């Protein structure tokens, strides 16, 4: 079986502008993922195609791409689910470094901006903090984020204001710590998210939920932050 691909190419070292390059792969086997196809293109057809990849099983978050108009991880996207020619572009809204590799600095900066670390003011006990299974359940659907940026780069609000709107991935992490029974920085965290942009640029378009390869729900997390803000102001 053969399959056709149309892939975004741009090398600032030699190209004046980006273009789409066509590739045809033969020997597409059953069960092959999109990452397998990209690796095969690089190995057999064109070594100059650049993209990020690592674990190959959807846990490291390296190979997020825009695949037929939708963000996803190449390594867990089955080829048979894709219509041809498969159009592959870098994640939208971020500067392109080369080919399918984007500059994720803004995305990471927003992540850092929510202070994504457990903050406890009390002296530390010599054993673990107590947390009931029910309290721990609150973190499910939050801590699993792999920072692939599929969500934030599919969010129109993040496209317009990537420097001011934290974006779904960072806000999911903001809620991950607000929801943690061990964390003692609730007030500071909420204050940091006040104002018109950080949180409130979310217009519940829900692209983030739609594309998350781990099935997480940033829109719900954002809603929870809003509710907590209201509750704490009362």
């Amino acid at each position, binding site marked *: 079986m053969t399959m056709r691909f149309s892939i975004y190419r741009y090398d600032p070292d030699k190209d004046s502008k980006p273009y789409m390059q066509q590739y045809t792969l033969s020997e597409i086997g059953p069960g092959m993922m999109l990452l397998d196809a990209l690796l095969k293109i*690089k*190995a057999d057809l064109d070594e100059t195609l650049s993209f990020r990849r690592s674990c190959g099983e959807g846990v490291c978050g390296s190979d997020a791409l825009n695949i037929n108009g939708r963000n996803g991880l190449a390594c867990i996207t089955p080829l048979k689910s894709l219509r041809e020619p498969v159009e592959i572009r870098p994640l939208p809204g971020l500067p392109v470094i080369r080919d399918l590799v984007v500059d994720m600095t803004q995305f990471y900066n927003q992540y850092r901006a929510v202070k994504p670390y457990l903050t406890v003011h009390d002296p530390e006990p010599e054993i673990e903090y107590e947390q009931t299974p029910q309290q721990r359940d609150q973190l499910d659907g939050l801590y699993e984020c792999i920072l692939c940026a599929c969500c934030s780069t599919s969010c129109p609000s993040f496209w317009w204001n990537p420097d001011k709107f934290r974006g779904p991935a960072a806000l999911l992490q903001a809620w991950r710590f607000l929801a943690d029974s061990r964390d003692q920085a609730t007030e500071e965290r909420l204050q940091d998210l006040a104002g018109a942009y950080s949180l409130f640029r979310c217009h519940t378009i829900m692209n983030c939920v739609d594309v998350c390869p781990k099935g997480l729900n940033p829109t719900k997390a954002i809603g929870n932050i809003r509710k907590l803000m209201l509750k704490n102001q009362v």
Partner: protein
Amino acid sequence: MGIAKRKFDSLVIGAGGGGLRAALQLSRAEATVAVVSKVFPTRSHTVAAQGGMNAALANVLPDNWHWHMYDTVKGSDYLGDQDAIEYMCRAASHCVIELEHSGVPFSRLDNGKIYQRAFGGQSQNFGGDQAARTCAAADRTGHAILHALYQQNIRAKTHFFDEYFAIDLLKDEEGYVLGALVLDIETGEPLMIEAKTTLLATGGVGQLFRTNTNARINTGDGMAMALRAGIPIQDMEFFQFHPTGIAGKGMLITEGVRGEGGYLINKDGERFMERYAPHARDLASRDVVSRAIAIEVREGRGCGPRGDHVLLKLDHLGADVIKKRLPGIRDTAMTFAHVDPIDTPIPIFPTAHYTMGGIPTNRFGQVVAPLGQLVEEPIPGLYAAGECACVSVHGANRLGGNSLLDIVVFGRAAGNHIIEYLTENHYHRPMNMDSVEQAMQRLARWDQTGDGESVDALRMELQREMENHCGVFRTAEVLQDGVAKIKAIEQRMKDARIQDHSKIFNTARIEAMELENMVDLALATVISAEARKESRGAHSRVDFPDRDDVHWMKHSLYSRDGYKLDYKPVRTKPLSVDPFPPQKRVY
């Protein structure tokens, strides 16, 4: 030479759990620290660790560090160094608590304490009943730990060089390590990082084998850098094959599945581990279970149309336990094996997983090498921790749950020793420009243009040869053939060329340098394996089926120059307790 230069107290190469735990210790002590990683830190392979981290917290069943030590020594098939093992097992509980305080979302018991599950090779009371020692965050423990460590490093203002590839260590004439030459992958520009101490935390080399559980980044860069710096690497013949990779593909299915009560069956539906390990059954040590699976398949009791795998059954655990405790491997099984383990067993086969060998260190993380008549002396300014290091706590076979423990305990220990070193070594030593020039040549070599052998084709050939010649079962004939094959690939590397000569994010060039690293490590592995004429732990010689403590209870040391092998004794004396003398190893 117009090479950009940065100066730090301490350089950490690798941003997995070992590197990040060390960096955190250093940043908190207000040392300036640079972490260089070829991928963004949370993409390091620690993220893929599933089952958990061992510590005798005794939250579920009675336990103590001494029992953990016994299991680890026995698991290592008596090749582990007992001083380091005692240190690790004693430190384990404290290190888990530190991680919990740092935010790791461990699963919980009803009483609010950290959830612990049973894992292979664990016992109570020195070989008695099964223990439950593995602290888990569902089946995403590595992810949870790596992210928490990265987060705490953000807080501690650690300086990160993300997507920089380490080319080589920089050394002076007196043998001090002065930092490293690294490559900014995005711009293609080299950067000299000067540091009073350099810690290698670059992980293992699972990519040596065609079917493996490892990320594509696991190319053993730090081990190869050490080899090129003239440091012999230790015990490379001991490579762990994880019993349960998805058949034909290799994705890891955690031992935690069996810890939660899953078990293996052959084509007759027989729970065959009862024959190989009557007491521990499916929770015997990994080397034992991997061999058992390979034998079942070889003797015609494998499953599927080609009889080439066995099945891991867990549907009897019920949907709730699977969704709660094993959600990640359920996803993986559905995506890659197209089965939902809630109702269908997973086809599995042993898969290359973990490098027990590596850069020799002492329990403080200092890299050690033979010096004149001395068995070993620390190399000033150089440290190693985690899978790239060989301290050696895993000996000939690592226990499940001990690798996350290893990286955290020895990342932290190395950090502590570096802090001490920095108080005695206030100044950077002068840079040795010859060393820089040498490292630059390694980079320049790939500027050669024209036709030549393809890097990717050579890589695939290397992986195939390693799989065929250095697998679960080994013989002299097959290993000798393997040595010849890998040496031939080494020769052909000289004719390899890349076609991509762009400076910007040139992944072809990175892959070429990774392959250079892997070829050196493949040679180290197969040559050490050919020489070791006994069976111990993961090294299973059909022609020498027994362990030979008289001749072979010693560590291998492989040098790149002249493919030379040397040996050093196992450290059998623990820090404070009585040694565990070698015994017949049964589960």
